[in-house]
């Protein structure tokens, strides 16, 4: 059974932020509810007030333009995102990652913003957003700010949001010209499952020498992580297998896989190496 709470359904962003400001620590915003309702029922989260965001029109915004890129409002569901032409065309990694979350019914309710705000280390959209250099737009009643996605996650199920703050949207810049991207998710079953290990990558031409490679991981650290240090290796002029050999020890220093119900840490560590090589080579050849 769900614990008792009040339910608000504000119709404007202003009203929403004002409510959050008043109720702050005792309130939780509600979009898809596919994580929140489970946590409330299980006791991992508590709330005296739920603030339903779905009637706030601007939070439903999903728009693309050739210069600024993609904006995804807080209430945009994963299925809406996945079926948007501009997303398929310009951000294939985001579509792939979102499509591995839960199942069709979940994706009809779950939101992109909700996935990052829940801040699970296994958040599948996070590696995609990390390699795409997404920016998170956060508002309180008094101000707004933009935070790069790699500063958003602070720990297991923890993010930088203050209790009176709301993530209103995520912005994604246009990816580099001729870039290619993909998401690989190791899991126990093709139906609904969390990532045992998730790897997101993007490759772009880098003049004549090497390539620009971006890599990010889910389920191998307290937060989703991007491996900026290891990425530098790939701009060198050597065969890709050698570059991967050099990058892997650096990556292994950044990640810290654990043993849990889904997999052992040794298996996860091995998957990081195997999937990194597989993904980098796939992107290298395609870009």
């Amino acid at each position, binding site marked *: *059974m769900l614990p008792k709470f009040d339910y608000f359904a504000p119709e404007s962003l202003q009203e929403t932020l004002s409510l959050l400001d008043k109720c702050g620590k005792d309130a939780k915003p509600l979009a898809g509810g596919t994580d929140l309702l489970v946590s409330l029922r299980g006791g991992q989260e508590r709330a005296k007030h739920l603030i339903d965001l779905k009637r706030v029109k601007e939070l439903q915004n999903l728009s693309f333009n050739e210069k600024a890129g993609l904006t995804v409002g807080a209430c945009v569901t994963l299925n809406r995102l996945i079926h948007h032409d501009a997303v398929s065309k310009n951000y294939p990694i985001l579509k792939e990652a979102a499509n591995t979350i839960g199942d*069709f019914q979940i994706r009809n309710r779950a939101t992109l913003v909700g996935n990052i705000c829940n801040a699970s280390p296994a958040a599948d959209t996070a590696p995609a957003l990390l390699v795409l250099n997404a920016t998170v737009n956060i508002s309180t009643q008094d101000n707004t700010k933009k935070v790069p996605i790699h500063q958003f996650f602070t720990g297991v199920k923890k993010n930088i949001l203050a209790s009176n703050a709301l993530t209103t949207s995520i912005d994604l810049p246009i990816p580099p010209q001729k870039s290619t991207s993909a998401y690989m998710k190791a899991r126990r079953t093709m139906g609904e499952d969390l990532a045992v290990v998730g790897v997101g990558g993007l490759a772009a031409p880098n003049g004549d020498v090497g390539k620009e490679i971006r890599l990010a991981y889910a389920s191998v650290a307290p937060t989703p992580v991007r491996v900026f240090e290891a990425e530098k290796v790939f701009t060198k002029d050597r065969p890709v297998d050698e570059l991967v050999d050099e990058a892997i020890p650096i990556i292994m220093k950044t990640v810290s896989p654990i043993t849990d119900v889904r997999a052992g840490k040794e298996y996860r560590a091995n998957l990081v190496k195997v999937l990194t090589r597989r993904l980098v080579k796939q992107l290298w050849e395609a870009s």
Partner: protein
Amino acid sequence: MNGKRHAIETDANKTLLWILRHKLGLTGAKPACERGDCGLCTILLDDEPVKSCLVLAVEANAHKITTIEGITKEGALSTIQTKFIEHGALQCGFCTPAAILVATALLKRSPSPTREQVVESVEGILCRCTGYRQIIDAILDASKINPH
């Protein structure tokens, strides 16, 4: 709700699943895991399959809801329901309301789905009896008949 309007008073913390079963007597949607994993509580919200254990009753206010009870029109089984019987796509029947509903929604948005699309549509339903083959075959077979 299946073509009829209802006015119901409920607490904020009651799920759509709960009011379907306890306030409207519609027991086709099943409470099993009640954490959004098994999918046996699936209903159609504005023609889209969602897990009703993850929807608050108040969130469903002023939306269109379709349950399994709304699929059978005046006692006549739908094409999908008939095909399920023909193919033996149900044994205990516990997942069947959910499976029929996701199939109905699938054929509405993709009248000629590929096998892959059918598989994707039932990924969110946990069936312990059939092994899914008969369910998938039934849905594909139903898609060949127009209208569904």
